[in-house]
């Protein structure tokens, strides 16, 4: 269960403050797969970061009563000057996983080859993103928080996509998407961000119907 308790979130960019959420009270079940719909990418990202615990709300509290992942595709905690191997080991220690097993697995799955011992900062952006996805899915969380970056463009033959499907069967997820076909396949419920409120719908069709007005616009 992820509880939004009187959450207000205001963000300032370019000396202009706008409200993304105002006084939201909501409980999101953490064992369901949820499609997340909203009018703008940035606003959705902010809500995702709130759920993942990357940012604090301006007022109120987000209580995570489950083992919630950080936003998949986010690897802010990695240090650019340390090698990928050391970074992954540090990550495994932070999340209490078996260090050796995890490093070996990532080495095989990410297909980095000799780049594993090079500084993380030297990786090309695509490889970083790929690594980020695999690292996040390799930890068994109760609830995964996905971002727009979390899914690979084409589904076939991609390791991270296979891992996503695997986790999708067993764990809860929140997935920002506007693709109805995808949502029908991988989601059961929907959350819609609409006029500074979050609304929970118990099936995907209703959520898409509710969000039709800004999907079309």
């Amino acid at each position, binding site marked *: 269960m992820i509880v939004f308790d009187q959450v207000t979130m205001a963000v*300032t960019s370019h000396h202009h403050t706008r409200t993304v959420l105002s006084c939201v009270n909501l409980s999101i079940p953490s064992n369901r797969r949820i499609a997340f719909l909203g009018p703008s990418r940035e606003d959705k990202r902010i809500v995702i*970061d709130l759920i*993942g*615990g*990357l*940012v*604090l709300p*301006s007022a109120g509290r987000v*209580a*995570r*009563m*489950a*083992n*919630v*992942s*950080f936003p998949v595709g*986010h690897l*802010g*905690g990695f*240090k650019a*000057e*340390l*090698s990928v191997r*050391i970074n992954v080991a*540090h*990550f495994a*220690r*932070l*999340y*209490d*996983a078996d260090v050796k097993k995890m490093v070996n697995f990532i080495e095989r799955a990410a297909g980095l080859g000799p780049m594993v011992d090079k500084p993380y900062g030297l990786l090309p952006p695509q490889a970083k993103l790929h690594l980020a996805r695999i690292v996040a899915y390799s*930890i*068994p*969380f*109760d609830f995964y928080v996905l971002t727009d970056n979390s899914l690979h463009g084409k589904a076939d033959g991609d390791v991270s996509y296979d891992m996503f499907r695997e986790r999708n069967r067993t764990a809860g997820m929140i997935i920002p998407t506007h693709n109805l076909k995808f949502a029908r396949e991988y989601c059961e419920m929907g959350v819609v961000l609409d006029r500074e409120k979050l609304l929970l719908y118990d099936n995907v069709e209703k959520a898409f119907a509710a969000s039709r007005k800004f999907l079309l616009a």
Partner: protein
Amino acid sequence: MKNASNVREVVSFRIALRRYLGIMAALLLQEYETWHHAPVRKLLKMIEPMGNIAIICFVGIFIFNHGAVVGDSQVLFIASGFFPKYLFFYTARYTPNKSSRNLFPTEQRLDYMLVNVIVKIVEFVILGIVLFGSIYLLITDQAMPVSYDPMLEAVIAMAMLGFGYGAVNLALRQIFWFWPAIVQVINMTLIMICGVFFIVDFLPPDIRYWVSFIPNIHAIVLFRQGFYPRYPALILDTSYLAYCAIIAVLVGFVLERITRRAIAK
């Protein structure tokens, strides 16, 4: 559930504590690995404390050229005062250069602040061995400490005080944008009045009374007792120092919590 996360998951206290200790261990190991990975870069960063202490010690000979106040070497006298004093500034100087987006949700800023204190204590222990070792080899035999306990206590007390001072500065910087400039003035004043260059017991009684409220002075006297067993220590009040250190740490924790939202922006 095995893995840790920044959650209010309902787990037993034992598991929560183990997770927290695991995270602290991971952060310390990461520090060690940055050392291991780029020792030259880290050593170059330590030029700053090393150079400052060395310059103050050797310039102090000429500015305060009235012979050794206690012991037989003016250099050792100033070094033994300035070393713990600098540890205080060095631990207090913590800038949260990491935005919370550059961390995993499990790593909190407070953890980084605590790791910062531990790392700086370790750095200063190494630095102290180098500094007093070279004074021992080059200048005087007195640089070999007669007892290590008061020195270690003073170092820990200074680090605790520095943590609190750093947290206060961090909080005040959110309110007054010019606060870092004032901190520099306060730091300079503290170096001058904290008994780095003189013995506090020999001050006039009125001044000595007011100056004795500064906890740093007690820590410096305590540190010097490691070198000079008969150092005039009428002013020393270790229980006052302990109270101040604990209160500083508590104030640091509270201020970190209060300013967390503001700093995260």
